[in-house]
């Protein structure tokens, strides 16, 4: 992270979820914080997101989720691991019910950010997860 490269993050919806507002706001917040954002938009499959992650060499993947397409988030994490990219943290944000949070974390989601958090919390969350995976590698 201290080699001068800007933190690069994918922000994406997954599956058929068409609710883009949260994702767009978060993309703006991360850009304002100096990160490079690859905004993928709607109708992204786990395969498509992993492809982009490879091509763009990203540091983190942020999935904006509106209700219950969690199986595809799990598929995304498994696919990253199969491609030896398990060290890229996957973060989720959106209207995610409280009891779903431990389930998502157990499946390998690095952090779940619920609605109403400040820009500062969101930015710090991405930075800390990227750093902690870098730390694990070294």
């Amino acid at each position, binding site marked *: 992270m201290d080699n001068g490269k800007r933190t690069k993050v994918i922000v994406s919806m997954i599956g058929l979820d068409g609710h883009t507002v949260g994702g767009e706001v978060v993309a703006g917040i991360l850009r304002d914080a100096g990160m490079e954002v690859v905004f993928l938009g709607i109708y992204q499959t786990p395969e498509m997101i992993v492809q982009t992650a490879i091509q763009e060499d990203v540091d983190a993947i942020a999935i904006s989720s509106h209700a219950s397409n969690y199986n595809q988030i799990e598929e995304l994490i498994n696919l990253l691991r199969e491609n030896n990219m398990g060290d890229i943290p996957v973060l989720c944000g959106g209207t995610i019910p409280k009891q779903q949070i431990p389930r998502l974390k157990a499946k390998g989601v690095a952090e779940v950010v619920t*609605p109403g958090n400040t820009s500062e919390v969101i930015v710090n969350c991405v930075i800390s997860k990227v750093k902690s995976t870098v730390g694990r590698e070294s």
Partner: protein
Amino acid sequence: MKRETDYGQPIKAVYTPKDIEDLDYEKDLGDPGSYPYTRGYYRDGYRSRIWTQRMTAGLGSSTDTNKVLKKYREMGQRGGICVICDRAAAMPIDSDHPIGRKEAGILGWPGSSLLEFEELMDGIPLTGHSITLLGSSACSALRLAYLVVLAEKRGVNLQEVHGSITEYPFANYFGQTDGQPLEINLKLLLDAVEYIIRNKIRMRTGVLSQHFQESGGNNAQALAVEMAMLDELCGLLVNERGLDFDDVALFPYELVSVGTRFFEEIAKIRALRRMWAKLAKEKFNAKTEKACHLLVAVHTSGRTMTYQQPLNNIVRCAIQTLAGAIAGCTAIDNACFDNAHAEPSPLAARMSLNTQHIVADETGVTDVVDPLAGSYFVEYLTSRVEEEAYKIWSGIEALGGMSAALKAGYIQNMLKESMQKRHREMESEERLIVGVNERVIPPEEDFEIPIQEVQEHDSENIARRMEEWKQTRNVSLIRETLSRLHSDAKKGSRYNLMPSIVEAVRSYATAGEIMGVIRQAYGLSYDPLNMIECPFELD
């Protein structure tokens, strides 16, 4: 705290007759039942007809949703039913599609075939209450065909069915996405509306500002976008389809998103009635009074429902319901207190319907029509939001209307700026939201509410059922109806596809199959997600 309207106009501490000195009662307001209908369409208001008190249903299988509809009736749903389809049916793709099967029954009813509609409506009459189906524009023509065929099977006169099962073609840009290009959505919607008008069916089409506003648009923008959409669609139906405006005027209904800016929400709806009446009369030369009435339904805002301290949302919902009722509307459906977490639990649904009943039966709001008329502040706000909306609408017109403004990215940019402004205002605490940026409590002290969830195996069961059922169909008949649809779809944009869609639906072709062959006729891939091929050899 900011003292300005949600569209950025300063608000003073006191309003006096000076603030409305330009207002002419007869010209700008009129009695209820008189042009320009600012005060409503009926002299007796809710005394002659109470608003439809409904809850949107749709989760899990069609049979599950049917049970929920029956339960809502027990809970006091009055006047109509409202069902939203799942994400796969919205596209539309089928429940057994590789992606569809992962999301079948999520956020709605899996309405990808006539079979599902028959199960949804089992034991529920088609007449005597309004039937509203929501979900996306793309499957509008299909839903109409479901209704046509089911009415025929039940021996019900289609002209006695009322409600709304078709939707405007622009929602793709406002968060309610489907997999189809605007060109196809627009063409199919015009076909469906023409079919409805020519067959004298009393079904309306949702031309909704709700999605735009729920995506972050402000009150003035929502009015402008609504008017631009209505203007463009009416123009096409009159000029391209050769329909009479007085018939066309009965095609839309508007679902207004009502948020927490109490007086502004009321002003917005009053201004909307006036703006439509003027458009109908001055631009389209409406001859009938009815053509100057835009049916207005209210959706209390999901965007204002907070994740934190969800019980606070009951209060927000009550304030919004009261605003909708005071403004005057034909139907209300509420976002529930669990809206930021999941689909409505039975408890949340009951609370929403009870909220409507309390407002309707206990507050006295139904006794008097347009009770805030003449308030210096409310009349000022009504004129102000109208004025702002006309300015924004002119900007859209200058680009060539709604479709052109969308193609130019103008509306999307306006929405994006507005949504970012809202976020900034929340973050800087210029706008306060209890439980979010004020009176925040630690998460462990937050209220526990029941959560309604669809499990992975529920979606898979819906998908498997569709897979197995598809094998039992008369495949040669389906191939025949789809081939006809495919060749009709190549006959140009004015050739009405409704008759061949009805035949395809009757043969139990699915939504994915029907939309797939239409897409092919337009030179697109069968599957909007490019994962499957057409399973039929078309003639």
